């Protein structure tokens, strides 16, 4: 009889990387559906197209570098979807394609692939697009009729005009990026990820909490601050990214806190109306340092050397 030997443990949890990534992709269908509902068929085309380009880019890069092709692990699909969700729904497809190629090729594969990238691929690509084509990247449309308009954050913080009602903000009936507008859809998706324990509470709680608190202290409407812009999608789907955020509970809390502070500073004192994108990229840089210092307590109480 041929017995296999290996080091313990001999049983493993049934959940692998693939299950996690595809689950996230599945959950992203909620904000995607909301985007399609509000912005029409263009939104659907953008999501499918960006995801497809992301997957193709990953396959080509891995083929060129003679590495195993891992497109079925679902991580490229997740990146493609996330990128589409943070783009204006009317963005020309060729720009979106450049974004997807940047996200996967430049930000992810060049740094070593899944697990090794420093920056959140979707957000780094979005930052590049924003710097390259600022007009197209800030051309927003109203839901349903697609008339060009400004985002609520721009209206309130830069033009000092009245904000849309909380309910409109909550369900997503406002101008903005494809998948960021519907807080409701994002919360449903996030709730599922919480229940299946794919994301945990520290980063989103610290992020949203600190934005609300700081907005309140600085004399702004805290509820408007958390319902507008890309805060919700950033807090639940970007600040919880495994690869580019810290690994410990303590570290994730600090990460969320840092994101919150940076977002508030950019929103109220910066040139841009929104700061979620840059605040998370900024904190991505600090992740290794946070990992080094925010470590769990050792059993036996000895100080870490």
């Amino acid at each position, binding site marked *: 009889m041929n*017995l*296999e030997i290996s080091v*313990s443990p001999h049983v493993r949890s049934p959940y692998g990387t693939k299950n*996690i990534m595809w689950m996230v992709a599945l959950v992203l269908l909620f904000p995607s559906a909301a985007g399609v509902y509000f912005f029409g068929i263009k939104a659907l085309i953008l999501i499918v197209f960006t995801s497809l380009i992301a997957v193709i880019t990953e396959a080509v890069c891995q083929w060129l570098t003679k590495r195993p092709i891992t497109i079925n692990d679902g991580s490229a699909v997740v990146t493609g979807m996330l990128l589409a969700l943070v783009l204006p729904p009317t963005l020309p497809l060729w720009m979106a394609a450049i974004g997807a190629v940047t996200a996967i090729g430049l930000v992810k594969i060049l740094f070593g692939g899944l697990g090794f990238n420093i920056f959140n691929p979707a957000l780094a690509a979005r930052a590049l697009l924003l710097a390259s084509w600022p007009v197209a990247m800030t051309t927003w449309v109203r839901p349903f009729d697609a008339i060009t308009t400004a985002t609520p954050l721009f209206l309130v913080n830069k033009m000092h005009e009245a904000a849309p009602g909380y309910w409109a903000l909550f369900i997503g009936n406002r101008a903005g990026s494809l998948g960021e507008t519907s807080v409701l859809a994002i919360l449903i998706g996030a709730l599922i990820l919480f229940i299946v324990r794919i994301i945990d509470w520290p980063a989103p709680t610290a992020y949203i909490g600190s934005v609300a608190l700081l907005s309140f202290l600085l004399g702004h409407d805290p509820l408007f601050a958390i319902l507008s812009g890309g805060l919700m999608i950033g807090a639940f789907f970007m600040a919880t990214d*495994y*690869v580019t955020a810290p690994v*410990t509970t303590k570290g994730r809390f600090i990460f969320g806190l840092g994101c919150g502070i940076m977002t508030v500073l950019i929103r109220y004192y910066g040139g841009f109306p929104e700061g979620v994108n840059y605040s998370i990229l900024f904190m991505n840089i600090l992740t290794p340092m946070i990992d080094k210092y925010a470590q769990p307590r050792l059993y*036996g109480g000895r100080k870490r050397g």
Partner: protein
Amino acid sequence: MIKCAIMFFSKTFRGGIHPAYLKELTSGKPSSPAKDPAQVIIPLLQHTGVPCQPLVKAGEQVKAGQKIGDSDKLISAPVHASLSGTVKAIEPRLCFTGDMVNSVVIESDGKNEIYEGIKPETGNLLAAIREAGIVGLGGAAFPTQVKLSPPKDKKIDTLIINGAECEPYLTCDHRIMLEETDLVLEGIKAAAKVLNVNQILIGIEENKEDAIHKVKSQITSTKSQTNLNIQIIKLKTKYPQGGEKQLIKAITGREVPSGGLPFDIGVVVLNVGTCAQIAKTLKTGMPLIDRVVTVTGRSLKEPKNLRVKIGTLFKDLIEQCGGATKGEIKKVIAGGPMMGVAVSSLEVPVVKGTSGILVLTDKEAVSYEENDCIRCGRCIKVCPAGLLPNFLADAAKLKDWDKTVEYHVADCIECGCCGYVCPSRIFLVQYFKAAKWELKKRKAVNR
């Protein structure tokens, strides 16, 4: 008031996991004696410590309970013949660990005669426990006599009895608590007497409600005869609740200092099976020559709890459970699935520390390809030692042994929680074992 609130909840520790327990395969099955083997292989090293020297020669007649190997070193435990018969050979034989260990091979004469020198012990309890070769029956097999003789400067105030049995599949301790409750309590009393402690805390996981009930009623019925303060602590069902350090933390709130022993915080921990064996030895004088082994697995025709003579081959026991009729055997584990050792052959003997024999098919023991870490942090969340398994594994992969020391590899208890949850299927425990091995080698060279 605060104490009441704490008692309301089952106690536990930081980290840990909830694997599929599958104890129902055998938990309701009373332990039955295994068939007497035609031959036993008794390794001269079955414990943590120094190997024994053989006291018999090939061709000699031995009887059940006769001492056949001993050592004059402190951390060691003698071994005994588990049946009567002829010594066929004294030679290295394959052990469950994969090592060749010098062993005494005895061929049974079928008479099962008991050695004449065996008589109840009433005098020196500690000497009797040593002579009987008693070791921790939970799995680590540390000589019990050493555990019961703490250094003079350490004041022991609490004796903890480990009835947690947190490893999936295993039910031998559960059965002992149900079937040998009186022996367990007698053993506890003897150990408490040796240690001169008053406070005894028995930790049992809440999934063994019947055992908690049985032990509780037994304590109540014998309360008048003793002045000991014996309490049952209900523990949360969570792996590794029965790990010595985790059990101490859950029950007393104390933590064993890094690199230290339970002695250092005034605690001694004994397994329930060990206590029952102590009582048996003191009552009859019979040394440790058999134990309860859970022979289990979903593919077995009839999983069982068997009382097995030390030295019986795994093969014989799997046969007695009807063999694997529902699927092909892929792996056989000595112990439980989380910390047990996969054996390379079924021709290895049951030793004192063998709590279970687990048969796994290819559906249960899936082999995985290792992938890159995605930094999900699950290993950190479940690590009961508070380590950073992902970074520790990175250091070990690079053979940066100094870095593994910085990441406290020595504090790893090898419980396997990190490896269980890792979605990238990284062989974390394997890396940590390798690092410990390298560091041990380096220490030996420096010495």
